[in-house]
């Protein structure tokens, strides 16, 4: 029975890097181009998870558990962030009947 790090190491490191870079870029593009607040939110989660993936991969390759501990931290923070973020989005919707971020320019002036 192989341990999980060994299984992870069966795939070359470069593949992980490429995959998470791709995921991260997709996330950035999502944040930049979409106007729906929920989609933007999901894109942000995607970026976070791209980073998580990379951290886990490097952690296995270098046999350093601190990378994986970071992953847990990020997950916990992301969960909290989702809770707060979704609540904000719900409140915005109740106020202006829309979740289009283009309408939200009240900060100006």
């Amino acid at each position, binding site marked *: 029975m192989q341990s999980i790090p060994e299984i992870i190491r069966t795939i070359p490191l470069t593949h992980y890097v490429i995959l998470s870079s791709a995921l991260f870029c997709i996330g*950035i593009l999502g*944040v*930049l181009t979409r*106007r729906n607040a929920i989609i*933007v939110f999901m894109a942000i989660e995607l970026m976070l998870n791209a980073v998580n993936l990379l951290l886990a991969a490097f952690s296995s390759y270098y046999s350093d558990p601190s990378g994986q501990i970071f992953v847990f931290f990020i997950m916990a923070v992301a969960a909290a962030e989702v809770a707060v973020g979704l609540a904000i989005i719900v409140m915005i919707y109740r106020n202006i009947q829309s979740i289009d*971020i*283009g309408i*939200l*320019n*009240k*900060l*100006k*002036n």
Partner: protein
Amino acid sequence: MSFIYLIPLLPLLGFAINGLGFPRISKSLAGIIGTIPPLVAFILSMQLFLNFDGTTQILTLSEWIKVGDLSIPLAFQIDALSIMMLLVITGVGTLIHLYSMGYMAHDKGLGKFFAFLNLFVFFMLILVLGANFTVLFIGWEGVGLCSYLLIGFWNQKNSYGDAARKAFIMNRIGDLGFLAGIFLLIQHFGNTNYADIFSAIQAGDVPDNVGLIAFCLFVGAMGKSAQIPLFTWLPDAMAGPTPVSALIHAATMVTAGIYMVIRANVLFELSPEVLHFVGWIGLATALLGAAIGLFQNDIKKVLAYSTVSQLGYMFMGLGASAYSASFFHVMTHAFFKALLFLGAGSVIHAMSDEQDIRMMGGLKNKMPITYVTFLLGTIAIAGIPPFAGFFSKDEILAHLYHHDPWMWGLAILGSALTSFYMFRVFILTFWGEFRGTEKQAHHLHESPLSMTIPLMVLAVFSVGGGLINLPHFAGGHEFLATWLAPLLPESEGLGEVSFLSLEMGAPLMAAFLPAFLAIYIFGVKKSVPSEDAAISGIQKVVYHKFYIDELYDVLFVKPIALMSNFFAQVIDFLVIDLFVEGIGKGVQYASTEIRKAQTGNVGYYVFLMVISISIILFLGLKSWIL
């Protein structure tokens, strides 16, 4: 001796109580609170005087300034000179406080007035008690401040405020010289303690620029003691209430310059050319003041010019190294000039604030006490024996006779002028017919007791004040000269003089003849000075004080005003405003431009954020790789 610090502290306390409680403390109470501190201080000073054993004592209260090697303590010095000054200040001061209770009784600001008077006494005591030039300087500036506050006491009138500022600014010019002198002393001796400096000099450590130091100190004295060219503030200072003129501008503050020169006599003795200068400035001031006094018609102005002139005599005495004689004159002058001013105040009070002697006359029956005391003061200042002024002025003249016969001759001339203008004022005020209005005649009255008691006490001192330094030929022991001797350089005796010699006879003639002349012109022929418009020729020039005020106006005030206007309207407007407002405008413009970047669009912000992070990342990677 531990009660010494109480002497200046009490007036300060009086100032604090009256100053803080000004509108709330009732007028009669404010007067009493104001008068008690100088009285107690006088009693304490008397105690000091009686127990004084001839040794100089220095009482250090605390460290004051300590920078590097420089250490200036807050210390008091008790010696023969400061004790005498203490007696004069607190003694005359108490009488004038008492007088003010009557004189200022109708004034709304009585409490404020007493607060200022107490503050003045406090600073004056600090001035004479200080054990170094720096503590003296605190008092020096403090009395200047109080002088300013009290000259402008009736500040509803603009001209009074102007007089106050004039006094303050003129004094400031002198103070600059005094400060420079102190700095030069610190530069050479490393501190300003009298004891250290004078013992260093006696040990042979004489600075090369001792003449310059003495000169700088004398410039300070010129301002404070109203000598040419800084004397014009003193006559204007008569805008203040009359007790102020008596206390500050006759008896005490203006003699601070003489006190300081006597205190620093070691420095002055080392620079004979400066002493020579002091003497001639004194002579010129004495003559100029006396000449202007001849034709003035304002009773207080005459006394003011007389003060200028008498201060000139004191400086003449200093110039001839006759320190104890000058100090003698300081004391007797404090008595008779305070008396004359208070007498004039009593007259002004009775005349409903009329000060023009052409409107007076015939007051002797209406106010007998003022009449008699004013007469005694006049005789004293004219130098008629055996009154106080005779002894003190004659001692100065006798020293001058040995020092420089030319100065002596001119001083005799000044003395004759003094006698003439004082009798002129006296006769025009008290003899003849009343020349004022009906209303004033109806109002005429003798002043209340609180005003006449100080007059009587001062009159006694004006008559008998000469006893404190009665010369040997008159059967005295020169008490004051002996008392001060340890602090002064050795002076050669004057030798024997007799009443028949020229030395003695000329001053007597100068005292008597002009007095008779004045009695003849104003008493017998009953001539009254003509109206302002009718004055012509040289008399007009003198009447207008030789146009010195106008001259200063053209030479100094106008150019400075012009320059200030130039700076205000051109430099300030075009240069400073342009620069300062330019910065403001620039920031405003830049921020309007930059504000456009803040659109409020969330997508735009996110885009900028991503771009920025990418740039930072790129730069970070670049520096990491390279």
